[in-house]
């Protein structure tokens, strides 16, 4: 346990006041709130970029062999100062009818691996045979991440056409989508033979949650930007212009994701507890601050103003989310008005007062946005908490616990589950399963579809009530060991409940099999920790997002680019023939 996380779990009198300001799990661990999270400055990709800047990582394009249409391969090498990693990219022609973001896809526009070191010729040959096949290939421990990306066809063609013709693409069109390509899977941790995460645990630069995956996505972003310039140059010759720097910076990398990501929040309670506790402790620390400096107050106003513009540029066709964004915009305007009207930024405990104002008067999305804004301007106070978010412990059973204590755990931490009426058909309507169709995760209707007998164990409330019934059942089990000897089928829920007693922010306090459970709330929560923005639901269980939008480019990591790129907004349209001039078209 890191020293900081130990403080969170065991507050001493000096830090007790901060701990008391933490929002409790019963407030935080609700799907509707988790589905309203925004990225913060301790989200994983922000932490990675800060590390890259702090340690002056150098990224060079070692190989870039693409034909006129952008097909071929490329290698980008990252030098951290102590170790090197390489993104190996393959771009292939793809029949438009075969392009899909679904797991069931069998071909992609581009495929990637993050290689441990710099690949030699034999490595490249082996990777060329396997990486484009993705799940159908086999990999070695030298491959740390496996990924693929498809073009956002609308935007990609439009940008190439504009640059080839000698003009910059339409900024409004860029803002509508926000990326040239979308990753559709980013595999790590031993999938298909790649390196297990345990290999990276001792490497500080990649020990954070999903650090290798985030690095891969950052490099993929660089590749997509270089690719579009390359194709435009081949098409337009001397007439072509490169993508202007502000536009390059404004483009992120998209991600299209569905249910595959969702069970993770259920199956890793210790890790999720660490993420949530770090975020909540960060908020609590800011709420305990006595006064904001004039600089912090000014920065808050600037970030809030920028966030307003960001929200106005947040586009989605999803009617539900579009309605939420409209309400959020109104809430943020109201928040800013109230803050200024009451002089909260100049008051005692300004961040606490702002948070409570949001909690008392505004919707969930605005409350969580307020948290992101507050954390944004308190970097020195909270950035260290990014080191608390990893977790290497596994769930374990305490067989010596007496069953009375186990019953107490259920009452204290699972009151929400015990109170559910599971006789109502809607209480159990959904079931999570893995399809034989390329192992794609899916959600089914228990009463309409086959397969519920193979459901994944996300029915926590059902399991909790079954455990409660056995504990109440009259048979006297002295210890957990005695209980599990007679009822080995309860092993999973017992391990889970005992773990959650020590990691109370690790359990979602809503049923994941209820008819009204929205899988998209799980996806948004996890993606917010990644640092994703511009949530664009395609249904209640599929979402597109943007990563690294506004982030420094690879050459800017060593030039002092500041850590103030949250809530990115579209830049002023550069001059039609703008070149790679760093000063052209800065954000207004």
């Amino acid at each position: 346990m890191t020293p900081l996380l130990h403080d969170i779990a065991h507050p001493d009198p000096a830090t007790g006041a901060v701990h008391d300001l933490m929002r409790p799990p019963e407030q935080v661990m609700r799907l509707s709130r988790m589905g309203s999270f925004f990225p913060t400055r301790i989200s994983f990709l922000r932490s990675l970029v800060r590390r890259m800047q702090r340690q002056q990582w150098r990224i060079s394009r070692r190989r870039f062999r693409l034909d006129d249409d952008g097909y071929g391969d490329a290698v980008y090498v990252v030098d951290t100062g102590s170790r090197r990693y390489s993104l190996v990219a393959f771009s292939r022609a793809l029949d438009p009818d075969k392009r899909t973001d679904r797991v069931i896809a069998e071909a992609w526009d581009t495929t990637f691996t993050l290689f441990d070191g710099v690949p030699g010729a034999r490595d490249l040959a082996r990777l060329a045979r396997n990486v484009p096949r993705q799940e159908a290939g086999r990999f070695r421990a030298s491959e740390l991440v496996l990924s693929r990306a498809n073009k956002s066809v609308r935007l990609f063609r439009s940008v190439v056409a504009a640059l080839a013709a000698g003009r910059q693409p339409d900024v409004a069109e860029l803002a509508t989508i926000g990326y040239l390509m979308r990753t559709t899977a980013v595999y790590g941790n031993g999938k298909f033979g790649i390196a297990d995460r345990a290999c990276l645990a001792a490497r500080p630069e990649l020990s954070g949650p999903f650090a290798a995956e985030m690095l891969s996505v950052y490099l993929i972003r660089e590749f997509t930007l270089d690719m579009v310039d390359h194709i435009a140059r081949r098409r337009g010759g001397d007439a072509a212009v490169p993508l202007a720097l502000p536009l390059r910076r404004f483009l992120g990398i998209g991600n299209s994701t569905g249910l595959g990501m969702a069970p993770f929040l259920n199956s890793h309670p210790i890790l999720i507890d660490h993420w949530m506790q770090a975020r909540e402790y960060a908020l609590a620390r800011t709420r305990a601050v006595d006064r904001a400096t004039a600089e912090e107050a000014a920065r808050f106003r600037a970030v809030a103003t920028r966030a307003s513009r960001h929200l106005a540029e947040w586009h989605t066709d999803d009617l539900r989310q579009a309605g939420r964004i409209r309400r959020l915009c109104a809430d943020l305007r109201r928040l800013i008005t109230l803050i200024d009207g009451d002089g909260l930024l100049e008051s005692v405990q300004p961040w606490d007062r702002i948070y409570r104002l949001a909690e008392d008067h505004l919707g969930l999305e605005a409350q969580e946005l307020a948290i992101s804004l507050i954390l944004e301007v308190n970097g020195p106070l909270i950035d260290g908490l990014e080191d608390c978010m990893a977790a290497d412990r596994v769930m374990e059973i305490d067989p010596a616990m007496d069953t009375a204590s186990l019953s107490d755990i259920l009452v204290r931490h699972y009151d929400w589950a015990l109170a559910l009426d599971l006789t109502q058909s809607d209480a159990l309507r959904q079931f999570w399963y893995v399809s034989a169709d390329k192992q794609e995760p899916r959600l089914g209707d228990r009463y309409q579809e086959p397969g519920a007998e193979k459901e994944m164990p996300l029915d926590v409330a059902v399991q909790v009530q079954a455990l409660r019934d056995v504990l109440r059942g009259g048979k006297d089990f002295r210890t957990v060991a005695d209980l599990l000897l007679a009822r080995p089928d309860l092993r999973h829920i017992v391990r889970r409940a005992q773990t959650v007693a020590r990691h109370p922010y690790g359990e979602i306090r809503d049923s994941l099999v209820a008819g009204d459970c929205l899988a998209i709330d799980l996806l948004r929560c996890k993606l917010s920790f990644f640092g994703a923005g511009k949530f664009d639901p395609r249904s209640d269980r599929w979402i597109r997002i943007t990563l690294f939008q506004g982030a420094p480019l690879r050459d800017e990591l060593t030039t002092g680019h500041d850590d103030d790129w949250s809530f990115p907004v579209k830049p002023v349209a550069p001059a039609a023939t703008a070149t790679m001039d760093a000063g052209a078209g800065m954000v207004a």
Partner: protein
Amino acid sequence: MRVSANEIETGARKAAQGCGYAYGLAVEAAFATGWLCRRDLDGVGILLTCLKSAGRPKHGQRQDWLRQVTAHGWHWQPAAGASGGLDPLRIGPALADLLEAAAKTPAKAPTASLPAAVRLESCHAPSLLLGFVARAAGRAGLDISLSWPGARIVWRGDALIVPPAACSPHALILREPVTVDCAITRHGEDAASGTSTVSAPPPAPANQGQGIGYRVALRDWRRLMRLAARTMVESTAQSRLAGAGAGLVEND
């Protein structure tokens, strides 16, 4: 072929689920298999032997083996009329749980005291017990010696003193059940105070830090994957269209 640790543990878990083990026990099967692989043993081969010979488990309320407590310790054997021998994927977690509970809680009855010896009659694939016994030894601060014909493995707390690699390879992969004997003593004052050693990670086995993965016979891997595939639901036109929430094309 070479597979990663995550593939081993996920595949083992799903294969056990595919053979009817409840999720919590399937996780234990994955743990036991991974423990063997990390020590360069054929964990997947041994697991497959067990899954084939132990039969579909009955994970209801009834115990399907007999437990006797004698002056010498515990004696477990298959229940009369039960098919097959003791299943290490059921016995192993239970043994580890009971040993740890006995070591850590004041005994109110002889049946709950820490035994000096445990005998497991007719136990299939005894190598699958090793991870569980290691866990009990480490967490409960026990010195344990586990033996069956051709094999003897010894722990002192969380230290593996005589590893399975010191045993005859043929003794580690058995097709027939054998009698397993376990000798147990408390390890110094740590066990007497009830302090668990769980916070101290066990010494890393030789392969663990290298991350190069494990070699598995291709035929065994395919068998494991066939068992794991039993956990998947056959796709229908409806589930393909609507189950993932993305539509069939998702291409713009």
